[in-house]
């Protein structure tokens, strides 16, 4: 396929990733500003409690693709809350703060520091796209998570992240994909994000040998794949 044929697909991916990483950038800037010079003074979780105002408008914009966004603190960052998520979710016309069990002693506690959307940005300092995966922490739906590390005074303090439902991506990508020959858009480990084939649907893994020509995307861990 020529780059020209692929350009409408790239436009949609640019728009989705641009919105998502635009918002993680807002979260990062907020957290960096509120934690600057605070790290030696035993910051508490209240330092980031104003995040809602910073992201609410974006989450409430009609047609917004992002359904949830926030800051996920490195374990032990806050003295009063060893684990902390300042996470805002759109629920209909409202934006609500996500309440999840916040300690290993609580039922349903979930150690988020081992998830790829947290671990990978911590490891390599890069932006990451995780999924699609069934997000049982928040949306309970097939979700794509965009995340980036947040550093303050050179120290990793957590990740800024946001969620986009897989169906939202599909709704925009399918119309442009349908005009192309068989094409798969895959994330990280050859997991299909969207395709115009009935054999490979969102969430499937490409079988070994199914991939032909690959078109990498600059600055994004997504690949457009033609069948073998």
């Amino acid at each position, binding site marked *: 396929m020529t780059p020209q044929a692929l350009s409408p697909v790239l436009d949609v991916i640019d728009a989705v990733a641009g919105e998502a990483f635009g918002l993680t950038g807002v979260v990062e800037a907020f957290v960096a500003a509120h934690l600057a010079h605070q790290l030696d003074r035993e910051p508490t979780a209240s330092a980031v409690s104003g995040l809602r105002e910073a992201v609410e408008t974006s989450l409430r914009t009609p047609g917004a693709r992002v359904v949830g966004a926030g800051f996920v603190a490195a374990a032990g960052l806050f003295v009063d809350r060893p684990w902390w998520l300042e996470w805002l979710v759109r629920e209909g016309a409202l934006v609500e703060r996500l309440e999840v*069990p916040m300690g290993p002693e609580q*039922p349903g506690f979930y150690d988020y520091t081992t998830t*790829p959307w947290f671990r990978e940005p911590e490891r390599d300092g890069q932006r990451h796209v995780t999924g699609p*995966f069934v997000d*049982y922490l928040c949306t*309970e739906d097939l979700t794509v998570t965009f995340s980036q590390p947040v550093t303050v005074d050179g120290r990793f303090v957590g990740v800024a992240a946001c969620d986009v439902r897989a169906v939202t991506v599909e709704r925009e990508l399918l119309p442009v994909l349908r005009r192309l020959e068989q094409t798969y858009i895959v994330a*990280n480990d050859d*997991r299909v994000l969207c395709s115009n084939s009935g054999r490979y649907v969102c969430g499937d893994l490409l079988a070994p040998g199914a991939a032909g020509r690959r078109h990498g995307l600059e600055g994004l861990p997504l690949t457009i794949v033609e069948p073998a």
Partner: protein
Amino acid sequence: MAIVLGNDSATKGVLTRMRHYYGHGTAAVFAPLEPMGRAEQVSRRLADAIELELLTDGAQLPGEIELAAAFGVATVTIREALADLRSRGLIRTRRGRGGGSFVCTPEGGPGSLSRQRLRERSVVELRDMGDLYAIVSGGAAALAAERSSGDDVRLLRATYEELAASQDAGARRRADARFRVLLAVAAQSPRLYRAEIDLQAEVGTLLWLASEKADGTDAHRADLEHCAVILEAIEERVSERARCVAERRVRDATARMIEHRLTEEEL
């Protein structure tokens, strides 16, 4: 047709309509509602989880507002359910700062609850519940074998290790609950995930109650072995094997549950 329901013509009318709808595509729409009140349903769900030690001794329950949101009921319903649990000694409530409701695991394990819950169901019902759970578990395992990522497999393995190493029944049930949920997540299916959660609440509870007797026996070792094989099949992406063993696992547990129910009847 010799169903006699007294002279209440209204009741008869309802019965007739139900028969009309059953067997049609709209059956589920007009299926009978749970006969229990909502507060009773909430208190039963929490009591089961406490007796099974899915909620551990001393753990703090979420606040009334969060519980109301989680169960989709009003806060007064939650208050009613919590009052019931309190009166049965299953939770303790502390007021003020640092207050809340805390789990009190009853002494002596879930034996009496087990008898009561199992007696409420007929053998045919128990088998039927087990059949559905087996199919969902098998389906989730098969899809997980096709679709799981390296991360999914690592999490499943860690949870399996927890399950194998757990020393008491409570820890084992918590690990098992997580193992089953992670399988559904690895299947990449939101619907299977929800089905697993619903079935765990309804059938999983009964299976665990009945598995007490299997502790330390060959049946228990066989169950662990099944988990190991499911995990291996997922790692090697052999989906039919994963399906088959995951189904077998639930069917074996269902048979144990039914045997348990039959023994209870003799006592």
